[in-house]
């Protein structure tokens, strides 16, 4: 007990940097001091305008006020991601933050629906999801507390202006004792014996020493990649998109959609993220199939309002560093790896790294076992998300562009082949207890992209189809009635 406090140096003042600094300063005040080094000359990527529901836990754990946070970042509510034209042109489905129906007699709802679907009845599975129905009606209210009610069976996330999230957290972090040092890092000094990072040398000549360095330097991966030379595991053969052309535009009149939209494009896909004051747009594409100019023209042609800035290009590669924690450097966010924002996972991955770091924060010296445990967790998350993203490209029948012909025929990881085949045959989803993307997510994307199971749980076979059909009709009707009573999205946000 009463170990000296670790000097934590956070490198980079983007979203990841300020999230890490805020969390460490707030939650581990007895274990560390936090200094954040950033250079105002270096821009931030501002990833993740769209988030996942887990961010709510981060906000709550830090003791931030949700309403204040939402106002500061011009945030809207998000009930899921709508995918258009992925399975084939004209398709649309929502990957909701919530369940489809509810289990009957201990058997997951999917199987009851599959039985009716095989008879040509039961309608679209989205009709049994509160989040889907609410999103389509552009209404919103937080989930009901009583788990017995239908209106409890969903979750929500935020869509926000990521460039405002960092500054918002900065004031919180500084109030919690984080010191900020302005300056460009010119070199990294390593300990001759251990190989640990000993200090950062700034352009000003200042030397910043630390015990633990959190690399939030973005794609540059200044410490983990450059200084320590941690190997890169490349996934571009699975996920070939390597550019994004981003451009904000004005909001259309009318109700704000409480969802993020991803629409397939000839050489990738584009996002549409409605905020309170504007709409974020971007075309994620493969530079082997589309030039930057073509991408720029395409996104400008697709947006629904007046462009508020010139399109800006971002360059990236899918993959991750072999280890996110090496020596005394922990990479968080883009410095650790990148997966395209198809499922809004960027900020989630930042959050998971911070959460694991807090759980494994060094007591005394850094133990190999703790580093290994951290890296195992990061791998567990990355591998799962990777497979889920590849599924969106693989489960498609599009043959209308060179890009789609290529991606849908690319080899996929064995782990994904097994998941798809298990679902196709039996309607079963490989079960896991933690991390991202449980059964409802897989069901949404698989069924949404046309993978309809041939079989189902045999316990539903005994049900009388007429009675089952009536039960499903009642459920759908109840969801529609419950949602109709909720306020519109703008009203829920307190906007006129």
């Amino acid at each position, binding site marked *: *007990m009463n170990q000296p406090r670790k000097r934590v140096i956070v490198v980079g003042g983007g979203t990841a940097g300020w999230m890490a600094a805020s969390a460490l300063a707030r*939650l*581990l*005040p*007895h*274990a*560390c001091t936090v200094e954040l080094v950033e250079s105002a000359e270096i821009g931030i990527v501002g990833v993740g305008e769209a988030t996942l529901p887990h961010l709510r836990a981060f906000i709550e*754990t830090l003791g931030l006020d949700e309403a204040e946070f939402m106002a500061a970042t011009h945030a809207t509510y998000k009930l899921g991601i709508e995918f258009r034209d992925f399975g084939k042109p004209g398709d649309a489905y929502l990957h909701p933050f919530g369940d489809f129906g509810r289990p009957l007699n*201990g058997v997951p709802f999917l199987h009851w629906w599959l*039985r009716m679907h*095989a008879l040509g009845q039961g309608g679209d599975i989205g009709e049994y999801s509160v989040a889907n129905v609410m999103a389509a009606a552009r209404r919103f209210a937080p989930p009901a507390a009583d788990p017995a009610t239908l209106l409890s069976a969903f979750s929500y996330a935020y869509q926000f202006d990521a460039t405002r999230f960092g500054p918002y957290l900065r004031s919180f972090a500084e109030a919690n004792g984080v010191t900020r040092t302005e300056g460009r890092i010119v070199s990294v000094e390593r300990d001759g014996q251990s190989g640990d990072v000993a200090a950062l040398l700034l352009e000003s000549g200042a030397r910043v020493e630390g015990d633990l360095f959190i690399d939030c330097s973005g794609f540059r991966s200044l410490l983990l990649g450059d200084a320590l030379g941690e190997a890169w595991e490349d996934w571009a053969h699975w996920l070939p998109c390597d550019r994004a052309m981003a451009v904000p535009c004005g909001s259309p009149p009318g109700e704000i959609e409480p969802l993020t939209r991803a629409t397939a494009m000839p050489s990738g896909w584009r996002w549409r993220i409605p905020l309170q004051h504007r709409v974020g747009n971007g075309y994620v594409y493969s530079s082997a199939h589309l030039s930057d100019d073509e991408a720029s023209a395409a996104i400008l042609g697709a947006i629904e309002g007046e462009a508020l800035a010139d399109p800006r290009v971002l360059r990236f590669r899918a993959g991750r560093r072999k280890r996110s924690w090496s020596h005394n450097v922990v990479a968080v966010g883009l410095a650790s790896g990148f997966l395209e924002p198809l499922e809004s996972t960027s900020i989630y991955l930042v959050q998971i790294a911070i959460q694991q770091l*807090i*759980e*494994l*924060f060094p*007591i*005394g010296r850094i*133990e190999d*076992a703790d580093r290994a*445990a951290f890296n195992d967790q990061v791998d567990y998350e990355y591998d799962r998300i990777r497979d889920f993203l590849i599924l969106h490209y693989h489960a498609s029948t599009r043959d209308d562009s060179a890009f789609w012909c290529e991606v849908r025929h690319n080899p996929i990881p064995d782990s994904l082949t*097994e998941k798809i*085949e*298990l679902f196709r*045959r*039996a309607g*079963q989803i*490989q*079960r*896991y*207890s*933690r991390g991202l993307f449980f059964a409802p997510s897989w069901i949404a994307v698989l069924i949404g992209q046309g993978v309809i199971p*041939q*079989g*189902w*749980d*045999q*316990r539903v*076979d*005994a049900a009388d189809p007429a009675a089952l059909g009536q039960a499903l009709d009642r459920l759908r009707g109840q969801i529609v009635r419950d949602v109709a009573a909720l306020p519109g999205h703008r009203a829920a946000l307190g906007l006129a």
Partner: protein
Amino acid sequence: MSDRAVRSVAILGGGIVGLSAAAAFARALPHLVVTLIDTPPDPAALADRLPGSTSAIHRFHASIELEEAALFRAGAAVPRLGLRFRNWPAGSESWFHVHGDHGGLAGNVAFHQLWARARREGQAEAWHLHAAAGVLAAAGRFVHPQPSPPLDAFDYALRLDPPRYRETLAALADRLRVTRLPGTLAAVSRREDGGVAALLLADGRRVEADLYIDASGPAAPLAAAVSPAFEDWSAALPYDRVEIGEGPPSAADPSDTILGGALGWQYAAPLPGRTLLGRIFASAHDDTSAIAIRPGRRRAPWVGNMLTLGDSAVALDPLHWANLHLAQTSIARALELLPGRDFHPIETAEYNRRARLEAERMRDFQALHYLRASADITVPDSLARVVDQFARRGRFVWQDEDSVTEDQWLSALIGLGVVPQATDPLAAAMAPATVAAGMAEMRKALAQLPARVPGYADYLARSGVPER
């Protein structure tokens, strides 16, 4: 019914595991034709013979609609709160392993971190005294969980009278249209593709089905023929002999007693009118005709149209009553993942994946106890990680498909003396004085429980449990 549905199942083994499977399949799948070959009991089939279960048994009973009250009235089961560990590790004070919450919510901080800090400073009572079930177990009292705190956050298991429990299951199976055929297996008829074509019985009868389940015990003639590969765990689990017996009645007790020792361990499970006893040890000290076990698991419990359950799928000694527990969770998993009639390897692979993870975790849970008893074992890496993380910093290492709850893990780790050596940095942010006050209040509330709750013997009498 879909054209992929399994239409019939033949189950080999007339013990508790076979009857449990028959009842569960018949209850869940009303169209299924269920035939059970009521083979003579195998003395080495521990899951059929031991008195113990875990709190997971309630879920199983709910699935087959077997009422607990009826089991009590039939004298087939009584409630059990915990396990009283004595002399384990050697020389230690006795402690109680119970189901359910220990401690209360403390924001982002796990309660055991706060307890461990207080304990290191000599300021905390035993871990089990921070659980409602632990307090009741120590006081010899019992009540079912109640809707309001602090009696809402604990669980219990059942202590079985194996022959009567078997009779209850047999009666249920009969009501559920299970055909029971007394007989023994003479041969397995195989298809060209390796699948099972029929079971040939000694009396000449031939039993055909879509699916065959071997629940006959560790010898498992059907499983041994179809899926012979076995993974040996004897390096991690030191004991390979079990002696089962019965003794005179002892005082009514909501806990079983587990007595550790240098050469093995013993259990005592008191039932009305008698005490069920057992001794678990290594063959080097074998001077009796004890049951031989070979700890390990069958690599592929489900191959084609053959599934094996019970001691033939996972062979463990009786510690924590893992045998029947795993058999029943496996039955539930088999129903959840029941493949189509072609038993495609993709479908059986998911069952086998989950079964493996669950079994390995149970092996580690048992091995933890032997590690702390200084037995000469090879500690699996997965267990070494659990112990290292918990001992150094109180971090619990979870794993997918663990059917041992986190509460049970913490209870065992702490009871066995693996107390975190350092305070987790997150917990360090909570002021010791505030924590001490909260813990004192909690202990006070829990200490008042025994006076409000019936004695165990009274509770049994009220529930209509027969004297013998």
